[in-house]
């Protein structure tokens, strides 16, 4: 009798189970292909009986399958393939376009002629169970994601509050400083007036004259200082015109190069097509010079590198949000210049205070430089982004809104 007929007879009962059942011999020739697997795989038994299973399903023709199936033909213990490690044994497309998940058990069945064994392959559809695990996983991921979003929003809120607090503190410090400076200046004017009267009353050849001169000189110096205080902390008037950072930098270059210590190299990386900004040239020059001075001081006596860059790009809300001072800026196109140094850098704690009037970590610093810089940049509706790593260096980036020239 024909071996396939014999197989059909012997295994007919397997046509009535909801499990995919396949029998192959040690040549991988398919001897039996039950109705269930016929339906799942959409492959009729006529097509596959007598042919090699491997010729239909080439993924099985790999060591990870063959080495284990081989033992079956010698009567070895059953072999399992779990859907978690191999999604399917025989690929079967489901109506929703996905592959069926299968758990497969292969066991040895004595061959008809008594020589060796056949492999009896039982394939279970476990898609629904697997799907449940999958859905659960998606649910879990979604929940985790929501929690993360909430945490982010919370952090953002905290950051805004901290920025507002710092801005308020700066504002009140500036008001206080300016107020004191004004009053102080008035008193100085009084001293100065009285000193000049004194100078007229004292005989010209008197030894007292030189003391009066000293009073006058010291008073003038003090007046100068208070004037600076007023300038730095106040919003001085801006005379704005279209200007290009590149142009300003080119003109400043000789001054910058002579200011910076000889052991420091200054590099210029200027963007060719840089949009103009609307700004007060003298004030922008002050900002640049001050940032360069700070960079120079941060590098100190070692050799180092200062890089001055210009560029323009769109800044998103998130990027602007990283500014240390709240400026309430809309996202948009900004032209910027930045001064990067290879100096000592700053830790986070220092970074929070650098704009405070009189905050300085330098022995001879007055701590007014960055206060002035900030006042000017705020007056121009721009912002400052800072990056700094202790022992590595800092980068101060000054952004002003790009001006698109109206087409003529």
């Amino acid at each position: 009798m024909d071996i396939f007929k014999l197989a059909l007879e012997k295994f007919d009962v397997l046509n009535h189970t909801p499990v995919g059942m396949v029998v192959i011999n040690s040549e991988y020739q398919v001897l039996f292909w039950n109705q269930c697997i016929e339906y799942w795989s959409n492959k009729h038994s006529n097509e596959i009986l007598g042919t090699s299973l491997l010729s239909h399903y080439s993924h099985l023709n790999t060591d990870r399958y063959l080495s284990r199936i081989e033992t079956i033909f010698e009567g070895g213990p059953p072999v399992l393939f779990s859907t978690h490690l191999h999604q399917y044994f025989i690929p079967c497309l489901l109506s929703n376009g996905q592959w069926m998940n299968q758990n497969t058990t292969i066991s040895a069945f004595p061959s008809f002629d008594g020589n060796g064994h056949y492999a009896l392959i039982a394939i279970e559809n476990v898609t629904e169970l697997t799907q449940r695990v999958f859905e659960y996983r998606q649910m879990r991921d979604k929940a985790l994601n929501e929690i993360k979003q909430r945490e982010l929003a919370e952090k953002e809120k905290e950051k805004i509050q901290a920025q507002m607090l710092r801005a308020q503190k700066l504002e009140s410090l500036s008001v206080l400083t300016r107020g004191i400076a004004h009053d102080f200046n008035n008193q100085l004017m009084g001293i100065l007036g009285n000193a000049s009267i004194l100078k007229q009353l004292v005989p010209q050849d008197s030894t007292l004259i030189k003391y009066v001169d000293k009073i006058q000189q010291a008073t003038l110096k003090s007046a100068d200082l208070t004037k600076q205080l007023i300038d730095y902390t106040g919003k001085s008037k801006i005379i704005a015109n279209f200007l290009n950072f590149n142009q300003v930098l080119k003109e400043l270059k000789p001054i910058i190069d002579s200011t910076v210590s000889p052991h420091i190299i200054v590099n210029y990386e200027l963007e060719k097509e840089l949009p103009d900004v609307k700004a007060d040239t003298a004030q922008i020059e002050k900002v640049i010079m001050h940032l360069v001075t700070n960079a120079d001081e941060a590098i100190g006596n070692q050799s180092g590198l200062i890089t001055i860059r210009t560029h323009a790009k769109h800044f998103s809300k998130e990027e602007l949000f990283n500014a240390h001072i709240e400026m309430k800026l809309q996202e948009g196109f900004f032209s910027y210049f930045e001064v990067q140094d290879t100096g000592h850098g700053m830790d986070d704690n220092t970074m929070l205070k650098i704009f405070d009037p009189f905050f300085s970590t330098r022995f001879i610093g007055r701590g007014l430089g960055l206060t002035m810089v900030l006042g000017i940049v705020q007056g121009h509706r721009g912002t400052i982004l800072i990056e700094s790593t202790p022992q590595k260096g800092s980068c101060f980036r000054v952004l002003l809104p790009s001006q698109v020239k109206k087409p003529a």
Partner: protein
Amino acid sequence: MELTRIQMDALSEIINIGVGKGAAVLNKILNSHIQLRVPLVKILDSTELINELKEMGNDKLSSVNLGFKGTLYGTAQLIFSSENASELVATVTGEDIHNLSMDDISFMRSGTLSEIGNIVLNSVMGTFSNMLSLPLHFVVPGYIEDYASNLYFKMVEKNTAILLAKTQFSVEKLSIHGDIVLLFEVPSMDVLIHRIDQYFSQV
């Protein structure tokens, strides 16, 4: 029923070779070196077996078992603590199993561990039956999660003497360890001893 020192050694050697083959496959799946201890071979009566089980602790265990009959009766088992089992499944499938529901965990576990257990136990038993020329019939492997005492309840109940061969293995990178246990019922022991002697005379 007594086994001589030499018979015991031969048995541990055979088990060691089989487990070594299983470990090599496991090594490939997990991509981590597997360390094996020298197997322990003992003959126990049911009270001793209970004591042995007590040593395995009160924790829930995950066990893949492969029953066999023929010239020998018994089961081969791969046993992990539930924690180690989860860890192993998580490693093999890349799933964070700790967050799955109980039902789904046991589905994942039973699927994955059954296959891992299947690979290891087939190597052990395949070697065993080949080397001792003992043709065996194998039952379709099963997966159980239960307490140690329940896992062996049937054996204890039968009140037959039992040959226990046990070896510990650990997966170096993952600090996962488990036991491979072979339990033979003693009525079939004569055959086993005979075959061991034959094996021994060959070497």
